[in-house]
């Protein structure tokens, strides 16, 4: 304990005062006086008295030195010296210090900003109890191993037969209507198995959670937001009744503020998930808590085993092929996870380029400090001591850059969150902020960058060739270019910049392709009205038809409206539906597999209104009513796929509606393809059924209206028409078709811009690095250039000489970078639909941009070289 006190005092000694030495000198002086006085009293002559006193002491300097060692810690002392020296040298060269610190601040700031987002979305624990054991379970199936929902019976089998989970609960998204003051409102909700809140380990703040008995009761738990909005946060909300989907539901509890199962859903209501017996109705997802000590792979194989049995028992169509078990935090982050990690990798590359730049600056500075290093070495500083001094300098720079970067990251992080939120919804992204984790990350990154960019220059400058460096002119005149190491660094950073540029180019190119792709229909002057048809009221065809006809009749009479139609899946809205069917007179592809195609439901005149041309036969007519024979229209892709080489007109399909019953439908027309999922994927086969005839349980829920006037101007009248025709039908959203198209482009646009921003930063940094190197090289070679000019070289020849050096390096970097770029764009394929990894024209453009930037970077030094006055250059030593 005592020695700790001593250690701390010694540690603090350099900072508590440099008085130590002075005071000790006083003490020694008084010591000597006392001793001399004694000696004099003993009869010595004054000279001798003083000499003996000093001898007896053991020398004044030596004593002071020993005292110093005891006072502080030698290590700390050196560090202090190095720090003071660093501050002095940096202040003596503020331009260098500022450039280095700013470059690092940008690199570290951007990295910390992205990390703070990663931290918020992926690293911070979910607000559930013991969240590390929570997993999301999907079914997997189909060729592409897609994550799928599973059926309720599968959930029950998995829950009851598995041994890997402590608890498991199913949930499904539900769009719910609630009756508020006579009109109908749409709310996002979740149907959850009663044990859901128990699995998550979160209890309601007010009232109670669901119990097993609630499974078929009409009870509801509110979110905090819903409670505050509709019940003003009153505790007596519990016990009240809400009309949900036309039925009374009793409020039994309120969840705590900030609770969401899936943050982007912002579900507002929770109702029990009623059991469902249909094995091929796959609509629930599962959240489970792993039993202690059980790993995810183990849990997965447990479920796969059960699934195998189910498939043997009920047939292949009745169960998924297996399960995936994903950590809940990753599952909730969804595609945002890949995107954030990709961006973190990208921003690390920018940081690496920044490091390279600073390393290059340090090397350049090392060259001008060769004399200083040589003098210090000559005075006895060991190589280790010099390396330590130089590393201290780079660490100070890095920490200063890190501190500035941290400030910057606060701003950059907020900007990033704002930009991303405008395009896509990433859960928990809005919780991005600088916390302890981010602080720790920034510190580690700063120190690491300090070492990364500091170690090479330190090693290379700390070994000066004494005799060479001490000579008056450190440089020889003949053709010395920038040192090999510095040129290599510039090549590296150019290569990194090209990788980013290639990725950004690929994304831009994808975006341009998407933009210029004809969607297959006319998007101008169109309004899309998303509605919701409560299944309880509109389950039967005869309930729906009056609504469709009533609304269409009135909307078509609105001034400025040209045409209107109902459709289930509006192209580019993200919605697609698939159905299995049989073709009459032909066998199914496999005994237990049916034909499968995209299906859509429309009212008559949809094709005319959308501008989708009819290639063969006819569209739906008014005469194709509920009583007329069932007809379908197929697109060209479907015609090619199911009836290759012949006309499908007159062919018939059996469309199963329930297990027992199918509907017989006849093909009456072929229409042109439209881009459905997005603007890049090739059109898929699509079969249109008539909304007045189909018995499919899903429904057309978009009213598409073509106008002669600004489409927004008919929005209000259309709302009024719905209220008139049926006030129980809520309107979810009204957007113009242009907005729908823009939404379908949101993700590619976001990624294009983010990558472009990073690529611009990377190329700028690389250009600055190249500029620094070439400027330095011109200074180095000024004598050589002087000689050339004196011997008759023209200005353009001199410029060319310099440009060639710079562009040569840039080209090497570009070639290396392109190889990396191809690999990088491969990894982007998973991120965004429609990226084609190797596209020569993009790579040509990338090279052009890079060489352009390199030419600009080299131009200034080249011009300086060309204007060099040979007399002055030759005279300068």
């Amino acid at each position: 304990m005592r020695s700790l006190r001593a250690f701390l005092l010694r540690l603090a000694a350099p900072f508590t005062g440099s008085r130590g030495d002075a005071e000790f000198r006083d003490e020694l002086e008084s010591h000597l006086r006392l001793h001399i006085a004694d000696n004099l009293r003993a009869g010595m002559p004054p000279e001798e008295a003083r000499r003996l006193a000093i001898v007896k002491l053991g020398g004044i300097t030596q004593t002071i030195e020993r005292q110093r060692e005891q006072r502080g810690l030698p290590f700390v002392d050196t560090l202090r010296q190095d720090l003071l020296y660093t501050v002095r040298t940096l202040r003596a060269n503020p331009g260098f210090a500022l450039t280095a610190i700013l470059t690092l601040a940008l690199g570290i700031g951007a990295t910390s900003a992205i990390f703070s987002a990663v931290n918020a979305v992926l690293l911070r624990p979910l607000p559930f109890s013991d969240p590390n054991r929570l997993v999301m379970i999907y079914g997997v199936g189909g060729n592409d191993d897609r994550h799928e929902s599973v059926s309720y019976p599968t959930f029950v089998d998995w829950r009851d037969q598995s041994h890997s989970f402590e608890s498991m609960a199913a949930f499904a998204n539900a769009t719910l209507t609630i009756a508020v003051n006579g009109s109908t409102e749409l709310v996002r909700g979740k149907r959850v198995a009663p044990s859901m809140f128990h699995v998550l380990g979160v209890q309601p703040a007010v009232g109670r959670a669901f119990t097993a008995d609630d499974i078929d009761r009409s009870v509801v738990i509110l979110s905090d937001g819903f409670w505050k909005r509709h019940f003003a946060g009153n505790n007596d909300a519990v016990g009240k009744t809400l009309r949900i989907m036309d039925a009374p539901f009793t409020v039994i509890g309120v969840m705590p503020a900030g609770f969401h199962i899936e943050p982007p859903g912002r579900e507002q209501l929770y109702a029990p998930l009623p059991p469902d017996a249909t094995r091929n109705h796959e609509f629930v997802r599962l959240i489970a808590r792993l039993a202690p000590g059980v790993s995810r792979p183990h849990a997965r194989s447990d479920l796969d085993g059960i699934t195998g049995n189910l498939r043997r028992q009920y047939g292949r169509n009745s169960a998924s092929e297996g399960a995936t078990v994903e950590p809940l935090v990753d599952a909730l982050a969804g595609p945002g996870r890949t995107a954030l990690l990709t961006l973190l990798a990208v921003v690390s590359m920018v940081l690496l380029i920044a490091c390279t730049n600073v390393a290059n600056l340090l090397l350049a500075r090392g060259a001008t400090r060769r004399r200083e290093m040589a003098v210090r070495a000559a005075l006895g500083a060991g190589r280790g001591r010099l390396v330590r001094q130089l590393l201290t300098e780079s660490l100070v720079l890095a920490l200063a850059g890190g501190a500035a970067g941290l400030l910057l990251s606060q701003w950059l992080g907020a900007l990033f969150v704002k930009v991303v939120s405008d395009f896509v919804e990433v859960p928990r992204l809005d919780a991005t902020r600088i916390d302890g984790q981010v602080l720790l990350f920034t510190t580690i990154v700063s120190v690491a960058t300090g070492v990364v960019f500091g170690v090479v220059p330190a090693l290379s400058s700390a070994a000066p060739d004494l005799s060479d460096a001490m000579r008056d002119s450190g440089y020889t005149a003949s053709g010395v270019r920038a040192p090999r190491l510095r040129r290599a660094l510039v090549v590296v950073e150019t290569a990194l910049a090209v990788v980013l540029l290639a990725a950004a180019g690929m994304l831009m190119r994808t975006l341009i392709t998407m933009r210029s792709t004809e969607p297959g229909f006319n998007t101008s002057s169109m309004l899309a009205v998303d509605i919701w048809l409560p299944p309880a009221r509109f389950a039967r065809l005869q309930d729906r038809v009056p609504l469709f006809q009533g609304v269409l009749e009135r909307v078509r009479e609105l001034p400025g409206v040209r045409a209107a139609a109902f459709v289930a899946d509006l192209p580019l809205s993200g919605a697609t539906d698939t159905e299995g069917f049989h073709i009459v007179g032909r066998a199914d592809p496999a005994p237990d597999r049916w034909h499968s195609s995209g299906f859509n439901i429309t009212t008559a005149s949809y094709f005319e209104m959308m501008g989708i041309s009819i290639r063969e036969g006819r569209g739906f007519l008014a005469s194709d009513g509920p009583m007329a024979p069932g007809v379908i229209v197929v697109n060209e892709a479907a015609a090619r796929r199911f009836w290759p080489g012949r006309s499908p007109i007159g062919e018939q399909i059996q469309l199963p509606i329930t297990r027992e019953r199918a509907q017989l439908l006849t093909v009456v027309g072929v229409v042109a393809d439209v881009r459905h999922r997005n603007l890049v994927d090739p059109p898929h086969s699509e079969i249109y059924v008539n909304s007045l005839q189909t018995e499919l349980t899903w429904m057309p829920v978009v009213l598409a209206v073509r106008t002669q006037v600004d489409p927004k101007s008919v929005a209000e009248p259309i709302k009024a028409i719905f209220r008139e025709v049926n006030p129980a039908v809520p309107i979810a959203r009204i957007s113009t078709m242009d907005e729908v198209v823009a939404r379908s482009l949101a993700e590619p646009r976001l990624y294009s811009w983010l990558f472009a921003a990073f690529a611009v930063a990377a190329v700028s940094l690389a250009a600055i690095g190249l500029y620094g190197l070439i400027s330095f090289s011109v200074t180095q070679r000024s004598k050589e250039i002087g000689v050339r000019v004196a011997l008759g070289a023209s200005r353009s020849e001199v410029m060319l000489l310099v440009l060639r050096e710079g562009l040569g390096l840039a080209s090497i970097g570009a070639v290396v970078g392109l190889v990396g770029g191809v690999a990088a764009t491969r990894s982007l394929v998973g991120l965004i639909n429609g990226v084609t990894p190797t596209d020569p024209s993009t790579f040509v453009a990338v090279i052009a941009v890079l060489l352009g930037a390199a030419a600009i970077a080299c131009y200034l030094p080249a011009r300086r070289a060309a204007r060099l006055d040979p007399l002055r250059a030759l005279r300068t030593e």
Partner: protein
Amino acid sequence: MADVWQGTLALMVLKTLDTLGPLHGYGIARRIEQTSANHLSVNYGTLYPALLKLDQEGYISAEWGVSENNRKAKFYRLTRAGRKQLERETRDWEKTTAILARFLAPKEHSS
């Protein structure tokens, strides 16, 4: 003449301050030299790091004062912790010497 090693020196300093009360560095050095009847010869300079160390450990404290012949000098004083440390070290020392004495004693006594 024996060299004086640090630990022993510290003990001698503490004992000196215990016996004579507050004293300056020169006085402590002289006292140690005299008590050992000049058998121990110390470079007075080595005393100062030892004093600093004891100060850092909190066993002694220092303050400027005026010496017997009216000169400015830094006086060291035993602290309460120092007094305890002195007792502890004295005990330890006595134990050590007792053990060593028995160890080195002539054979016939230890049969």
